[in-house]
């Protein structure tokens, strides 16, 4: 397997105002994250809001300037290069299809904008043909090109957003919660479309969502994030059925399962409290304040990200003991 994207020790801090003069405070949105994505694979990132999953996705596309670390795309370090040639290869689909489309542009222009910028069409006729074929790819048709975003339903708008991402024939797409704003009956349509497009065009996805059941369905491998760090990484079945980190376990047990018999018999691990502030993350293991198994060691020493079984990584001092 060839790695398409590799992220090494990526850090993304955002400065925040502090009460004291001359003291600089940072929100450590992404703090030392490393992972890679193979060609043609879907890598899922899950976690609660504020854990840094969206920031990770945006930083990989260099929409933020990374504080430190490396982003390697297809063997080339793109951490500091001019991104223009890479914008053609890497695209993003945003969460909110109501906010991410310009209300004053027609759908044809929204999709065609990237074609214009990268000068992909020789003439007007070719441009139009490209737009129509893109719209057809995502299940819309040519007559939709002259309409405005407000004339479409949420699911259709997300299709427009996907067509826009596909306009430059990318290899890699960051899907930032692309279905969480959609109705349940529409979600499956869009998920299936992502899968079909991947097969057809050989795309690689970074799929970001907070809904673990969707991420598990679509991803080959999953990274679980908590407060700016990946706490566990493995194949989707490893994460769903043999999770090692106590946070992953509680996350899975908290997901309501649409099956009354299972949900009645299941024991839930309800976590106490809220996610701590990323400005002052807890010392040692960041999950210790909510972890039911935390000890003094967890407060003193940050657990290393170790490979428990081949390909299955976890950052917890006690994962071996907890497994029993």
């Amino acid at each position: 397997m060839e790695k398409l994207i590799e992220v090494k020790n990526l850090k993304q801090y955002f400065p925040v105002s502090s009460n004291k003069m001359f003291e600089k405070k940072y929100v450590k949105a992404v703090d030392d994250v490393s992972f890679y994505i193979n060609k043609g694979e879907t890598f899922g990132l899950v976690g609660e809001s504020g854990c840094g999953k969206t920031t990770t996705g945006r930083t990989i596309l260099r929409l933020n300037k990374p504080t430190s670390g490396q982003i390697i795309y297809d063997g080339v370090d793109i951490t500091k290069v001019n991104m223009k040639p890479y914008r053609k290869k890497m695209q993003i689909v945003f969460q909110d299809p109501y906010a991410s489309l310009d209300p004053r542009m027609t759908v044809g222009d929204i999709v065609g904008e990237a074609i214009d910028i990268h000068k992909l069409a020789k003439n007007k006729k070719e441009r139009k043909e490209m737009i129509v074929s893109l719209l057809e790819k995502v299940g819309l048709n040519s007559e939709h090109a002259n309409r405005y975003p407000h004339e479409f339903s949420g699911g259709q708008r997300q299709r427009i957003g996907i067509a826009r991402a596909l306009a430059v024939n990318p290899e890699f797409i960051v899907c930032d919660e692309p279905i969480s704003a959609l109705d349940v009956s529409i979600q499956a349509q869009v998920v299936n479309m992502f899968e079909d497009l991947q097969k057809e065009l050989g795309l690689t996805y970074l799929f970001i969502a907070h809904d673990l059941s969707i991420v598990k369905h679509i991803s080959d491998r999953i990274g679980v994030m908590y407060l700016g760090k990946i706490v566990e990484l493995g194949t989707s079945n490893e994460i769903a059925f043999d999770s090692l980190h106590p946070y992953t376990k509680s996350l899975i047990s908290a997901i309501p399962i649409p099956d009354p018999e299972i949900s009645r018999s299941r024991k839930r691990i309800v976590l106490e409290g809220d996610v701590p502030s990323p400005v002052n993350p807890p010392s040692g293991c960041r999950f210790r304040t909510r972890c039911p198994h935390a000890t003094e060691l967890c407060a003193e020493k940050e657990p290393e990200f170790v490979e428990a079984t081949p390909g299955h990584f976890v950052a917890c001092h006690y994962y071996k003991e907890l497994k029993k």
Partner: protein
Amino acid sequence: MSETLLDIKNLRLSFFTPAGEVKALNDISIKMNKGDVLGIVGESGSGKSVTSYAVMGLTAYPGRIVGGTIDFNGHKVHEMTEKEFRKMRGKEVSIIFQDPMTSLNPVYTIGNQICESILLHDESGLPKKELKKKAKARAIELLTLVGINEPEKRLKQYPHELSGGMRQRVMIAIALACEPKLLIADEPTTALDVTIQAQILELMLELKDKIGMSIIMITHDLGVVSNMCEKIAVMYAGKIVEFGSTDEIFYNPKHEYTKGLLKSIPKLTDEEKEKLVPIEGTPVDMLNPPKGCPFAPRCKSCMKICIEKMPPYTDFSDTHYSACWLTQKEEFLKEEGNN
């Protein structure tokens, strides 16, 4: 035991918009007993929120009840005036909204907002000072009940100082202030993270047993209803297309929409990767609803009659019924066979 608390009969509610009449609710009937937890599921625009708002008299302009009756706890809700509603709201029925970030008033303290409904509904006739003291004590008691630590400190805080989960707890505290008989929860956990969602759902069930209230849980998450509810109403385009106990809906769904909905969600417990079966098409345009069954344009087994006539309800058990021509046909054939 099975005392009727809420009885909605043939409710019709329309919004008279400039573009035309939108029939948001089309012949809705729901019966709820004391202590029941009823789940209403459906996509956005299916009328699930409108139904419960009607119970509280919160139908927004230009909406109007155009037919049917709502009996709640001895009140004829469809005939009540605004003054009477004010007496009932908060005391007998209260609501938790979806977004705790926007449903609390940012310029008042938490304490102020909790005490408001206690003071409004107080009938003890105590002097103002004592009443305020009493309300404050009650507010502290409520915050402890919903699991907020340091309640006295929190009373003086403003909503922006609390996290999303905490704010939703405060909302629940406000809703419970007068121990209502019915709590309407309108997507109470949609804006929250799953771990916080689990906390809130657990809390609601706990409080339900403590206070002995009934809950209407409005959600689009089938996982949440399977955890919480005993009965489920599935709504589509202003109609209840299927009604039944949780087991009946999940293990023996009769309406094509319910079946489709259940197939379209991925389950965390599935080991094999199966392709999802989506419901094709888009939700109904409520301005121009189809003449027959509203689901017909998206239905895989749509027949001729579906497009022309609205199907009547077929009963499968005391609690389970659905509106679909397919089941009508099956029942008919069964009867034919018996004869």
